Each structure stands twice: as C-alpha cells, then as structure tokens.
C-alpha cells in the first residue's frame, strides 16, 4: 500500500493531506472493484452467449423494475458517501484556525511574491515555520493564477481584483514545490516556487534578518546584487543575458545601444530608459515584442532598480 501511495501521490507534508489520501484510495479502490466486476460480467456474457448459429432466437426480456431500482439506489448511496466525505475534508481545508500566521501572496506573470508581517519580502520562496497554521492571503496583479502545493493537496486560484485564502500546517521542516496551475501565458510553466519550512526558532531568525526587505546585503557589489534580484524578481524568465530571443529583448549588449520602438521611433538605452521600462514597461515597447510586462512600481525600490541597471551595464 505504501509503495502504491508513493507511485500515485506525492509525499503528504501537511496535517490534512492524509485525509485527502484516504478518500482518494476509497474512491479509487471501490471504482476499481466496480470496473473489474462489470467488465468480468461482460466478458462472461460475451463468451457464454456467443452466437453459435445465425438463426438463434433470443428470449424477450424487456425490463426488471427490481433490478433498475437496485442499480440506481446502491450507486446513489455510494456517491452520496463520497460527496459527504469530500465535503467534510473540504470544510476542514476551508476553516482557518484562529491562531494562523498570515502571509500575503501576490501572483503576477510569472512569479510568486511573498510579504511578511515585518515587511520582509521574498520572491519564489515562501518561508514558513513548521507545525503552525499558516494563512495565505492572495491576490494577482494581472491575470488569474493558481497557487498549488501538491505535498499539501491544496490549490486555490489567485484572482485579480479580489483576495482568496488558503491555509495549511506543515508538520516538518523541509521543502515543497509550488506550481501555478491556471494557464497564464508564455512562461506559465516556469512560474514555480518553493515552500521552505523552518523550525520555529530558525524562522524567527530568518524573519528578523530579512526585516524591512530590499536593502543591499553588505557583502555584495551593486551589480552582483542586481544579478540576484533579476533572478528573484523573475526578470530572467523573459530577458536572456546571452543574446537569445525570449519573450522580452535580451539584456546582452543592450546598454548604450539604439533600439527601434513599436511606434516607429527609436531610443538610446540609458539609465533613464531602463528605469522607465521597469516602472512603466509599456511606455516605450521595443519593436517586435509583445507589450506584456507588468510594472514593478512599488515592488522594487530605487536602490534595487539601480542595482539591476548596474547589472545590465555589465552584460556586454
């Protein structure tokens, strides 16, 4: 049974995941029994009543009310059990415990951003303490995304213009993958993330170290920090640094060059143009590329923008 569980389901890493798994196996195993039963009956009939001569006469059997009622009522009872069970587990998934720790989640093309109580901010990595209910308050900056952690058996759409919620309690320290499961365009399948579960004390330390968020780590040069930020903020999902063509223009050799724009004019790529492109991406779109980038207004501070520009300058 454990081997089967490992083949079909990801590891169960939240307090409620095993409830989903028990129901999963109940429905699948009873379905399997029904399938084998029905197919066996059909195979038996096909063999037993195979046509032996072309003039065979078959008996007239039109209906049988007892049978009709039997095979309507028994499946009805079974599916009602599945319904009630599924609903009960769902309600447990819905009702957030009072002492849940709140984290704000923002989805946008194509990254996950997490904001913590003390202003700490991460991209792609959700840091949480173990053995404590976590409540995610989620919204989207552009189109619908969906936050899915298979290890927790949980999924919730992240919708622009409204908040949706999701809660879980990760039992042990460890890591779990986050997928986006609502199709959101070119890099939908790259919109991944990781839940990093810390021991409670480690989480406190981590949180304190990242308080405020967005100031340059002591040991990094601005360009190096810019490179790190370009990864974290998913710039690299659309902008290559090696000259290859992706959703947006490559950054290689871009600084100082002359770029043709979609409206026919052209622009010299300098600090001002790069800054404008980060804050108002659709003001001057380079010819041949779709106007799909979101603004980073309010997400990157001046220091971070400067660091990214410094990084772009190094890409000759």
């Amino acid at each position, binding site marked *: 049974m454990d081997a089967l569980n490992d083949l079909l389901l990801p590891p169960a890493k939240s307090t409620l995941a095993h409830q989903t798994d028990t*129901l999963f196996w109940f429905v699948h195993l009873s379905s399997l029994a029904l399938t084998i039963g029905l197919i066996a009956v059909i195979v038996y009939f*096909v063999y037993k009543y195979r046509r032996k001569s072309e003039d065979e006469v078959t008996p007239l059997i039109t209906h049988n009310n007892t049978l009709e009622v039997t095979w309507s009522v028994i499946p009805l009872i079974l599916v009602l059990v599945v319904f009630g*069970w599924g609903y009960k587990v*769902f309600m447990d998934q819905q009702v957030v415990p009072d002492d849940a720790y709140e984290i704000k989640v923002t989805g946008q093309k194509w990254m996950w951003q997490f904001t913590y109580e003390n202003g700490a901010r991460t991209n792609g990595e959700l840091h949480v303490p173990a053995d404590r209910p976590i409540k995610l308050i989620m919204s989207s900056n552009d*189109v619908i995304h969906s936050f899915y952690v298979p290890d927790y058996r*949980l999924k919730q*759409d992240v919708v622009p213009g*409204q908040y949706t919620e999701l809660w879980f309690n990760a039992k042990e320290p460890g890591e779990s993958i986050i997928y986006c499961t609502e199709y959101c365009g*070119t890099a939908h399948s790259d919109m991944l993330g990781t839940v990093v579960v810390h021991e409670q004390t480690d989480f406190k330390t981590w949180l304190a170290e990242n308080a405020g968020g967005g100031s340059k780590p002591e040991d990094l040069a601005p360009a190096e920090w810019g490179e790190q930020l370009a990864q974290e903020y998913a710039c690299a999902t659309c902008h290559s640094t090696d000259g290859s063509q992706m959703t947006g223009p490559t950054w290689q050799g871009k600084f100082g060059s002359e770029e043709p724009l979609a409206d026919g004019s052209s622009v010299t790529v300098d600090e001002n143009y790069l800054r404008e492109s980060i804050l108002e991406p659709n003001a001057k779109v380079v010819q041949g590329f779709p106007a799909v980038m979101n603004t980073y207004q309010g997400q990157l501070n001046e220091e971070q923008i400067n660091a990214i520009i410094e990084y772009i300058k190094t890409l000759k």
Partner: protein
Amino acid sequence: MATAEANPKKIQVQRYEPESDPDKHYLNEETGLWTWLTTVDHKKIGLMYLASITFFFFVGGIMALLVRTELWTPAKTFIEANTYNQLFTLHGAIMIFLFLVPSVPAALGNFFLPLQLGAKDVAFPRLNLLSYYIYVAGAVISIVSIVSGGIDTGWTFYTPYSSTTGGAVTIMTFGVFVIGFSSILTGVNFITTIHKMRAPGLTWDKLSLFSWSLYATSIIQILATPVLAITLALVGMERILGIGIFDPAMGGDPVLYQHFFWFYSHPAVYIMIVPGFGIVSEVITTFSKKHIFGYWAIALSSLAIAFIGFLVWGHHMFVSGQASLATMVFSFLTFLVGIPTGIKMFNWTATLYKGSIKLASPLLYIFGFFFLFLVGGLTGIVLGSIALDVHLHDTYYVVAHFHFVMVGGMVMAFLAGLHYWWPKMIGRMYNETMAKIACGIIFIGFNVTFLPQFVMGSQGMPRRYFNYIEQFQSFHQISTIGSYILGFGFVMIFYYLVKSIFTGEKASPNPWGSRALEWQVNSRPPLHNFHHTPVIVNGPYDYHKPMDEFQLGLAENHNAHSDVNGAEVSVSNEEETSAE
C-alpha cells in the same frame, strides 16, 4: 402495443423488401458538384459533415501529436513556448467545436434520424443545408484567426488573460460564435423532425434510442449554445470596445466569465456524449439480436442527463474563489448526474444476457467504449468530490479524465456508429479483419497515452505546461509513444474505410440482421429514402418478431398485384391523425 387500444386505425399494408445494389440511389439520382453544394438531401449533407469533421479531426490530431512530441523532454524539444501554447489551444478548440460537437448529431444523426423515423427528410431541409454552411463559415473564420496570429488562451478563453493577450482572439471567438448557430439550427431541426415526421405507427415508445438521444442532445443544443454566443459576444465587446465586463482592470469580474462559459461548456460535454449513448444502444441490440433491456430507463436517463447537466457547471470552479456553499451544491448535483449514466451502463450489460452475441467490429468498438467510458466516468466521480478536486484540478488527471470520456467514450462510440452504418451509407463493406486490428491498436494506444497521465496528475503535474520537472519525464515519454500508436490506428481506419468505397464488397441491405427501420431500405438508400410510406407495428428492438413485420408500408391501392402479399394492421397514431 399498449397504446393501440387508445385510437386504433385499420391500415392496408404490404411488404416491401429492400434491394441491395439498386440501380438508382441517393448518390447517382442527381450528380455533379453543384447538386452536392446545393443539395437539401439529409444524407448528402450528413456525408458533407462527415468529410468536414474527418478533416478537422486529423488537423486537431496532428496538433495533439506535435504537443506530445514537444513534451518528450522536460525543456524545449523542438518548438517555442508560445508555439506550444497555440498548439494546445487550437487542438482543444478544433476538436471540441469543429469535431466533437457536430460529429454524431450532424454527421451520423443527419443521415440516420429521418431513416429511423421513416421520413423522406428532416423537417426543414433547407435549414439543414444552411446549418452546414454556417458550420463551414465558422470553420473558415477560425482558420483565418489561426493564420492571422493564432490564439494562446486555451480552448476555455479564460478572462482576463483572453481579454488582454495578443493574437487573434477576437476572430477566433467570432468563429466559435458562428459555429454555435449551426448547432442551434440543427437542434431545432431535429426536435421538429422527431415530433412531426414519424411514420404511421411510430409512437414514442417505438422510437429508436438513437433518436431519443438526439432528442435530448437537441434540447441541450438549443438551450445552452445561446449562452456561449452571449459570453463570446461579451468577450468581443470587452476587447474591441473596452467595456469592462470580465477584466478587473476595467471594473469587471473574471469569475463571472467562468460561470457563463461553463454554463454552456458543461452541458456541451453532454452534447458530445449523449448521441454516443444512442449508438451504443443500437449496436448492442443488433449484435446480440436481443430486445434492449430497460428501454424507458435508457430513454429517460438521456433526458435526465440533459436536465441535470445544466445544474452542475460550478464543479469546474471549486478552487476559483466561488462561495463554499455554491461549491457544496454543485458537488452534490454532480454526483446526481452520475446516476443516470450508471443506469445506462447496467442496462446495456443486462441486454447482453441470453443474447446471441456476434463480436463484429462495431460491437468491438462498443466494448472499447465500455471500458474507457467506465474509467472516464468513475474518475469523474473522483473529480466531483470537492477535497479530491482541490488536489487534482488543472492537473494531468483532469486531462486524462476528459480524454477518457471524450475520446474513449465519444470517439469510440462514433467509430462504432461509423462501422455499423458504413454499409448503409456507402453500400460497401470494409475489411472486417483490418477493422478489428485497428480497434485493438486504438484501444492499446489510447491506454498507453492516457493511463500514465492519471499517475502524473495525481502526483501533481499541472496541465498546459511547456516545461516540466524531470520527475515526470518517463510518464510523458510513455504517453507520447502511446499517442503515436493511437495516431497510427486512426490513419489505418481512414485507409480501409476509404479503400472500401472503391474496392469494397457490395453490402446487402441488412448485413447485421437488424430490426431497425434504417436497415429496411435499399443499400445505398434511394434519394427520398422510401419509395413507400413505411408502417410501423413493432419496436426497433423486437427481435422476437419475424423480419417481414418490419418491412411493411402502405399498400398501393391502385396496384391489384399488391393484394397477393397485402394485409391489414391496426396502428395507434393519435398525433399524425390529429395533425392532418
């Protein structure tokens, strides 16, 4: 004949035996390209639909193979992410709107509904031709959208992605909008035909189950399709005029779109599968030479599915952010719609009991249907359970589930119907051995393609992913190999069916010994179906009655010779007599 006492009427009848290979039939009574393009003959229109949907099936199929080939490796294999996104969108849109929805009703239904009713044509033959041209117009518009930029929204066109992305979304939604009218008009035509065009004696309790299923389908087509048209029109208005309906940036509600979309698209699933159920009933009775078990249970469960099917759309939206109460109600109703479907499966199985079963290729396809549809239906129960859907929604589990229902169920039933009725349509037999081998290849290829997807989905592999994590690679590769086997099977069917048109053995009028009315006309059928007015005294599944009782028609009074085999029968015929 329970109702015969209600209003008995004596009619002079005689037997009309059908001939094989008649000199004149619907394909040679009028010839030339122009007569095809302007024909109002339901059989020719059915064949034109058949040719069109076959074309689009292969176009959509090639796209599926490209998608599967790209998924051979976890990163880019041979096409860009944007191309991949367009391919899976077009695969879905083409297969659903241009193949599945019109497949059984518009192609096989068009051909056989009037024959099963003993009518010379559908109620509105010109409207029927118009439906076909609207379908073609919609298809052409869709092709224009593919050529002028393509679309990358997924076949579901979810907002606000679809109202903000580039490409030719407006043109494509307009194409689908237009095709919808074809569907609506066919529905109106069929309902009228079933009500008003039945032959003398063909009461509701003698209506074939295929006709009943088309009746249920037509009701859904008429009631649900307009909602799709309205929804797509609203998306168009949002994109062109900037009116905020679904896009929150303009004050709209994106979840509202999902409600509208699934209000059509869930019943549409039943538009696709219910006619398939009709074929199953016809083929099972014919090849077991036995009366259908639970005629009314099967007929009425189609109507029950049509009705309850309208009330379950929210089960596509359990994680969309809709209210928990709504989620509970939709889950409950979803389980109810499973019951009539289960009833059908049990009744079909019971029909085989003490039958005289001949495992010819149409029946073999039906058994393929049985297994695959059972798996598809039971995994639907899994997905209907809210807690399980929270985990499995938008993963490959869902992809596998609907392919089991739509391809394993619907396409297998369609192929069964095609093989079953091919001798009547074309007047030629196909190669039976090849048909059986192809059925086996498709069955194996299908399972190799889609069973691994259940496993991947349960493990959390999301759908519509261009890149994926390496853990899933072996499953994806098995699935891709399966898709090639499946593709080969379909090409094989195409080959031997087309070959049979030219070199096939001539078919007798009733090669399967069926009692159904469409088998009591010549193969190929005459242009106006019947040279006589058929008179119905038995139901289409009364295998305990002799064949000659199924070949009766109004006696030609002016012909003295007819007295030789003439007879008198009582038929109950309230509706037709009051209508006249």
